[in-house]
Structure formats: C-alpha cells, structure tokens
C-alpha cells in the first residue's frame, strides 16, 4: 500500500465523517440522528484501519475495537434515551426538545 492510497482512503474516511455530520445536522428525527452518529464514527474507524495498514502495526485495529465499543455504548444509551423521550414527552423530533434554552 502506498501513500497515495492512504491519502485517498483518508479522504474517504473524512467523507464518511462529513456525511455523518451532515446527517446529524440535517435530520430532525432522533433515530436518523443516531444513524448519522454511527456513520460519523465510521469515518475515524476507516482512518485508523487505513493508517494501521499503511504503517503496519496493530494499533489501528486496536483503536478500531475501542471505537466499536464506544459506538455500541452510544447506540444503547441513545436508543434508550429515544424511548424514554417518547414515553415521557412524546417526541421524536429533536427540534421540539427546546424547553431548555436562552
């Protein structure tokens, strides 16, 4: 694997990150935001794997594992929060959760 490939892979990982970020900003439904978060995390995951492949160490994969754990934890908490919000306040649109402001 050469530097150019790594460069493009990193670009693509940044693209994934940016796409996820776009989803987070653009989507109002909570579930979509959670999906977007997953994509956001996929970006660095690709980045670590690509970097690890380029440099030839295990660190990249190890970091990927940690990212995976984080993603899982976040999804668990996020979905639980989504359900709780629906139950307590009956909302699924993030834009309506604005009781705390100013």
């Amino acid at each position: 694997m050469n530097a150019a490939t790594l460069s493009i892979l990193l670009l693509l990982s940044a693209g994934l990150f940016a796409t996820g970020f776009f989803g987070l900003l653009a989507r109002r439904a909570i579930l979509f935001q959670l999906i977007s978060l997953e994509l956001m995390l996929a970006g660095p995951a690709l980045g670590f794997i690509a970097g690890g492949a380029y440099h030839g160490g295990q660190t990249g994969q190890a970091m990927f594992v940690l990212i995976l754990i984080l993603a899982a934890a976040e999804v668990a908490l996020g979905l639980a929060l989504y359900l709780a919000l629906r139950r307590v306040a009956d909302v699924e649109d993030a834009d309506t959760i604005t009781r705390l402001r100013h």
Partner: protein
Amino acid sequence: MLSPYLLLLLVPSPPLAAFLMLGLDPFFLRRRAVQVLALLGGVAPFFVMLPLAAVCFGGECHGVVPVFTLAFGQSEVALALLLDPMSTLVGLTVAAVGAMVITYAIDYMSDAGVADLRRFFALMNLFLAAMLTMVLAGDTITFFFGWELMGLCSFFLIAYNTGLPQAVAAGRKAFIITRFADAFLLAGLLLLFLEANSVRLDVLIPAGATMTEDRHLVIALLLLAGALGKSAQVPFHTWLPSAMAGPTPVSALLHSATMVAAGAFMLARFSPIVMSEPLVQAIAAAFGVGTAAFGALSAIFQTDVKRLLAYSSISQIGFMVLAVGLGAPEVAIGHFVVHAMFKSLLFLAAGDITHGSDLGTSMKAMRGAARRRPVAYVAYVAGAASLAGVPFITAGWWSKEAVLSAAWNTGPFGIAIWALAFLTAICTAVYAFRPVLEALLPEPEHRSRAPHGHPLALNLHHRARIGSGFITVPLVVLATGSMLGGVMVAPIISFLGAEVPHAPHLPALLAAMAPFAGLIGAAALTFVPSLAAAVEGAHDMRRPTRLDHKFQIWVIEPYIRLIRWLSRDRRPRDADLDFERQVRLIRWLSRGARMDGVYQALVVRPFVNLVRWLSGHRGGGVDPVGSAPVALALRLTQAVVGPLAHDRFDRFWMRSANRLVRIWVMARAIQTGRSRDYALGLALGTAALLVIAWGTTWN
C-alpha cells in the same frame, strides 16, 4: 521680664471666653448670669485696651506678641498680635463701641427668652472678639481669621429672628456677598504670602510695597475688591440695607465700628501696598466718592430709620475709602473713629426711640420722640449733628473736613472730587436731619393694635421717659464722644504720623455751610407735604392722593419747563407721567439703584438656572416680588422644588448599562435550545479550527 504687650492676648480673650461660656452653656446659666457674663465679656476688652493705649501713647508703640509659628517647608508662618498706632486707635474705638453696644443690649434684649439671649450674646461677644482679633492681628492669617469670623457671626446675627424668612434671607445675602469679596481678599493675601514668604504684617507690608509691577497691581486690586465687598461699597452694597432685619444692637455693632468698617480699616492697614499704585488709588477714590454720593442720595429717600442709617453707613465708609484713595489713610482712620461713635450712637438712640413701636423702625415711629424719650432724642440729635458735620461743635465736622481738605489738596482732579464730596455732605445733612425733624411731627393717631403684637408694644406709652442705666449710659457716653471727639481728630492723625490736611478758606467755609443747607433740605422734605408724600409714595408704590399744588407750581413746574425747553420737547405734557418719572427716580434711589435686580439678572438667575440645569429640576413660576431678599430666597426655593433627580453623568452610566442589556438579549438568543443548532455551532467551530490549521500549515 514680661512685656506689657502680652496684654494684647487678653484683649480678645474675654469676649471669646464669654462666647464659649454662653455657647457651651456648661452650667445651665440663668438669665441674670447670662447678662452678667455677656456684659463682662463685652466691656473687659476696653479696660484691657486702656493700659495698652497708655503705653502706646507713651511713645513705645510697636509691640509684637508671637502666638505660635508654623513651619511650612521652606516658609514660616508666624502668627502674632501686633500693637502699633493704628491698631491701638482702632482697637480702642472698637472696644469702646463694643462695650457700649453690649451694655445697651442688656436692656434692649431683656424681653428675649433665655436660650435666645444666650445665643444672642454669645454671638455678639464672638463678633466683638473677631473684630478685635482682626484689628490687633499681626499677620494675615489671624487677620483673615477675624475677618471671616465676622462674616459668619453676621450671618447668625442678622438671621437672629430665625422664624422670619426675610431675616434669614438677609443673613444669607450678607454672608454670600461678603464671602464673595473675601475670596478676593484671600487670593490677595495668599499671593502676598507667596511674594513675601511671610505672613507677618511688619515684614509683609514693606516687602509688598516693593514688588514687581504686574503682581503688585493684581494684589492691590484684589485687596481693594475685598475691602469694597466687606464695606458694602457700590457694587456690593445691597446686603447692608437688607441686613437691617437683625436686632438694633446688631446693626449698631455691625455698621459702626466693626464688620462694615473693617474694609476701610483693611485698606488703611494695607495702604502701603494698595496705594502705591496710582491706578488702584484712582479706582479707590472713585469708588469711595461715588459710593458716598450714592449712599447719601439713597438715604435721603428712605422711610425707615434703620435703612436710612444703613445707607448712611455706606456713604460714610465711602468717605473713608475716598480718604485712603487720596493717599491719606490716617485721615480715614480719624473718620473711622468718629464715625464709629456717632453711628453707633444713632443706631442705639433710634433703636431706643422706636423700640416696641408697632410701626417697626419706620420714620413715623420717630414722631413724638422728644416727648417720649428725651434722652434718646437728644442723643440722636447729637449724633445727627455729628453725622451732618455741624461745624466746630461736632466731631463729625473735623473728620469730614479733613477728608474734604485732603481731596482739595490733591490737585485739579481732586477739586472735582471735592465738589462731589461737598454735594454729598449737603445730602448727608439732609438725611441726617430728616429723622430729627420727623420726630417733631405729632404722633400718628393711635391705631388699635393686634393682640398678637409685640408684647412690649402695648407698654410703649407706659415706658419710663428715661431708660435704665444700661441704655442711658451708653447714649450719654457716645453722645459726648460724638460732640467733643472733634478735638481728637488732629491728634489722631498726627499720632498716626501724618499732617492734618488743611484746605484754603473758601472750600472750608463752603463745607461748613453744608450742614445748614442740608437742614433746609430736610425741613423741606419733612414739612412740605408734597415732597413727603412723594418720598412716602415711592415706597408704598401708590400714587399719592394729595399734592400741594403750590409746591408743584413754584418748584416742579419751572424745572420741568426748563427741561422741556432745553430738550426742545414739544409733545403734550402729561402730568401723571411727570409725576411717575419723579417717583420712579426716587424709588430707584431708595432701592439702592436697583443693584439687587442687576445681581439677580447677572448672578443669581444664571446660577440658579445652572444649578437647576445641572440637577435636573423642573422650574416653576414664581412671582417677581419687589423686594429682592425675598426674591433671592424664592429663587433658591424654586431650585429646590421638583423631584430628586439624578445628574447627567449618572444618566450616561445608566444608558450604557441599558445598551449592554440589549446586547445581552441578542447574545442569549444564540442559545436556541435546538440540538441541531448546537451541533451546527460545533461544526462551525470545527470548521474554523480546521481553516486555521490549514492556514497555518499551508505553504
């Protein structure tokens, strides 16, 4: 060996001690104790002054008693009392007059409550102490101390009747105007101090006389302005007539030997500095003679004895200032001594005659005086004669003649001054004799008095014809002095080290005639009903109803025709208008040339407007009241009315605070509460950081 001059310290001490005792009231004094204390404090200085004067007349007349010395960096301030011929003479006079006035006041004020009595005598004693301190001061600090203290006491004393708004207003007016003049004096004294690096008069005056030109002129002018204010000379004269709101003894003390005369004394004291500038000299002479003439003219048309005497004081002190301006301060001091005696006498006698009258101190209250209070009347006559300057037998003639001669001897310019002073002397005699003649008129018919009138007023006619010793002794002593004091004038002047000026025979003879001319004028004003009515009417602001047509035809009519012919006036005549004009002139003069109005327009109103503008009060309409003191009081009252407002800077601060609040409202709107907006912030922040990173590493 103790120097006899140490006695100097004892001169102002008794009245000061009396002030402290009366003011602090440590023993809860009774009426009798108060009177005794006051009398002791008032009389003692005279008896302390006597041996000092004896020493001084004995020839050794230069004593300095240091009080204490302050070190100011490189300069030294040595406070001291000084005994020299001038302070001896003036001190003796002041002590004597003070003693007389306080003695008189013991009886005069006997109907006041104990607390008021205590206050009155405490202040009178303090006043006396202040004047004595000033006279005997050996340095400018002590001098100014006494000078200012008098101003303070005059405020309290004039406002003695604290319930009377015009008394309080008169007190404030006196204090503010004299304080204004004092500011000039203070500036002059401080500049002198900086120039001479000493405050001691015996060092400072010679040093001051040899200053550089411009400094010298400034200082001399400042000192002159200070003196003019304190002495109620023309631009500053308005406070003095209003100050008559104080009790008679206060007026007697204020206007004869102390407060008012202090300005003249100061000029005489500092004459080596003031009078070495020809310009200042000319200004002083002009102001002096102008004031003298103006005061005399105004006095003629007064209907109130005390106001008449007040204008007389203005006029007489004008003579003193004139004398100083002519370069004869010794003559001024001579006139000072004589004036102190006859003026206090006049006040005391007039006060005694009018005491308790329901007409107050108006001229009418004088009527029947010869019958009611013969001693006082005789004393008044003596005083008036002295004031008018009846030749040879009165003291007033000698001193006034000295002034006139000094003027005559000054040269061609002096002759003009002499002429004006001569006319003034005639006017002086006119007003001096008016009350005397008025007293000959029958008493006005007895009107029923309001039950709430002065308690003593009811006893007016039951009073003894001869007053108690407290009244009689001062009157007799002062009357004697006013008559026989003339023999002292020449010794006084020569004691002070100057020649008695002598005029040629013609002017001297003319001057001697002046009192008699005045007497005729006074008689005309008193006994010619139309003129009396005019004077009267000018005050009541009503048209007189009865005119003596004869007088109108023989005197007024030709005069008016002459004027019309001279001015080629062909318009039809309006008798009312003529009369109006005449009355208006009299009114103008009797109101002190309406100087109060000028002050009102030039000083008070702008000041009040400024204050009002600054403190944001809303003004309300106030009737322009004829009498200026009331107007002054009202003006300041007006400034008070209105809500308690903030000043402008305050508003500025509050406005910026409000602006900040508006920014706050905008800033907090950023926090919309939507998580997507929050994330947008996150994204923008990240983007900014990335751009910075890219920018800093890109090359």
